[in-house]
């Protein structure tokens, strides 16, 4: 159209600048501030509570991070700090365990569904199936999570169903097993997240490769294991990340399902930032937990890198 590359770049930048500036101000700036605050301290070790009072000066310190490693009482670690460090480590460990179990459950259960829609549903019906799978995800998260309280709880749907077929004679009340109830609830809430990326990668699998495999004497099952599954691993990896990262940071489910008795790391971040108004310590927890998640996610991607990078 006669547009020189620089004129085109200018037009593109002009258009994108409002959303780009919005993200800079509302996402990049806050995240940088949190990163900075995680290294901030006040004279005499007072808690950093924003907005700062007159005469308060922040200085650089590693003491917030040091507090996370207070395993035993010492000159720098009070007994409160030790309890706090232990509780935080427990919550972080629980978050990772819950997220890992939820990811495993959702991805394993979702794969056959994605496979069915991609390989056995007529192309004209595919978007209808996907729509049906995604609808529950678009309805209120709080309501869906809260409903699991009534389903898993004493005399809830699970107890009623199992009792009716005679498997149990006493109500199970699965809700009393906090972590298990949290895993069940989150697996349900994130199910569609796992189906979609796997479906997208299965759609890209060249169907003629499957025919070739079978022509060369592979069975249906070995064709799946040696052709389809490796080719769809990019989708599986995406599904794992897209389920794992938000579930590590889930806040609503431990509150509603665990009644706050089995807190995860997001509940700790909220306690520091909001209830205790200790924004430096809250920031330290936020940065540390994101760092741990980033390390876990990177290791996972590296472990699967032979499946990624696309076909040559």
């Amino acid at each position, binding site marked *: 159209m006669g547009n020189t590359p620089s004129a085109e770049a200018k037009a593109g930048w002009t*258009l994108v600048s409002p959303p780009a500036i919005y993200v800079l101000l509302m996402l990049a700036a806050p*995240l940088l501030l949190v990163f900075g605050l995680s290294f901030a301290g006040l004279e005499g070790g007072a808690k950093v509570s924003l907005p700062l009072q007159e005469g308060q000066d922040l200085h650089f310190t590693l003491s917030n991070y040091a507090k996370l490693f207070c395993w035993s009482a010492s000159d720098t670690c009070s007994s409160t700090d030790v309890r706090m460090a232990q509780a935080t480590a427990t919550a972080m460990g629980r978050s990772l365990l819950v997220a890992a179990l939820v990811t495993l459950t959702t991805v394993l259960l979702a794969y056959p569904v994605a*496979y069915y829609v991609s390989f056995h549903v007529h192309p004209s019906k595919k*978007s209808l199936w996907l729509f049906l799978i995604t609808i529950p995800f678009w309805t209120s998260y709080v309501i869906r999570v809260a409903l*699991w309280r009534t389903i898993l709880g004493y005399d809830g749907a699970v107890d009623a169903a199992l009792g009716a077929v005679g498997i149990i004679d006493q109500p199970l009340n699965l809700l009393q097993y906090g972590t298990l109830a949290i895993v069940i609830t989150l697996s349900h809430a994130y199910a569609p997240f796992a189906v979609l990326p796997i479906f997208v990668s299965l759609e890209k699998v060249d169907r003629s490769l499957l025919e070739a495999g079978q022509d060369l004497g592979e069975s249906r099952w070995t064709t799946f294991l040696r052709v389809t599954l490796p080719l769809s691993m990019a989708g599986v990896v995406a599904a794992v990340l897209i389920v794992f990262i938000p579930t590590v940071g889930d806040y609503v489910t431990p509150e509603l399902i665990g009644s706050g008795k089995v807190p995860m790391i997001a509940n700790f971040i909220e306690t520091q930032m909001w209830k205790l108004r200790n924004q430096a310590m809250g920031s330290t927890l936020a940065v540390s937990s994101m760092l741990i998640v980033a390390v876990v996610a990177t290791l996972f991607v590296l472990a699967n890198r032979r499946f990624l990078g696309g076909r040559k």
Partner: protein
Amino acid sequence: MKQGLGLRTYTVIYLLVLYGPIIILPLFAFNDATTVAFPLSGFTTKWFGQMLADANLRKALVNSLIVSLSTATLATTLGILAARSAVRYSWPGKGIVMGSIMVPLVLPEMIVAMALLVLLLAAGIKLSLFTIILGHVLIAMPFAVAILSSAFQSLDKSLEEAALDLGETGWSTFRLIVLPLVMPGILASFLITFTISIDEFIIANFLGGGEPVLSVFVFTAFRFPSTVPPVLALGTMLVAFSILLLTIAEYFRRRGVAKAGGKDTGGFL
């Protein structure tokens, strides 16, 4: 095909479990008992009456509508700019900028909410409905960009070029040719971002400065047994409303794809 049948049965059961809670919700909303447990005891509509009579709930409803309508308008407007720029023009740094816009999709919401809270506190901005909107636009924009990008992608570039050759200006081409063709995508984006905003809890709870909105009302009510039955009635109406909006959004999305002559690849994401 035997294998297909097994998979089909599995998928149908999977869907039933997926819908389980949403199916159970109206059962208890119309159930004549103060405790939420089986067996059901009788039909009643009194929880709906109790819910509608609640003045706090009406306040929360008005607040939620203000927040969701503002969020949908802003997120869709910003989404149009980003999607149009990314699809139509090539410019340096596109990967980083578009990637950053999509980041809230993979960040835990608590991190987004607390980071914004810290910024607002540091800047001395009072928490209000407005600050909820600021947060909601951030988390809704990735969805708007995803929907609108596919709407702009299915647009035939030669239509625009024809209009320009026939003497239209850049803006009038956009208004007369591009906008009508992507209108279904814009409507779909508006409805989806509205749904995200009205259902969102964490940002609404922490950035709202105590202003009641629906999701916070629901969360609080579920923690006290006595308020559970009326909130089930509210939940039933919210879920029904969400499904209605989504069905309309899906209708527009499909019409948009058909209008632009594209092939339907399915799904919002």
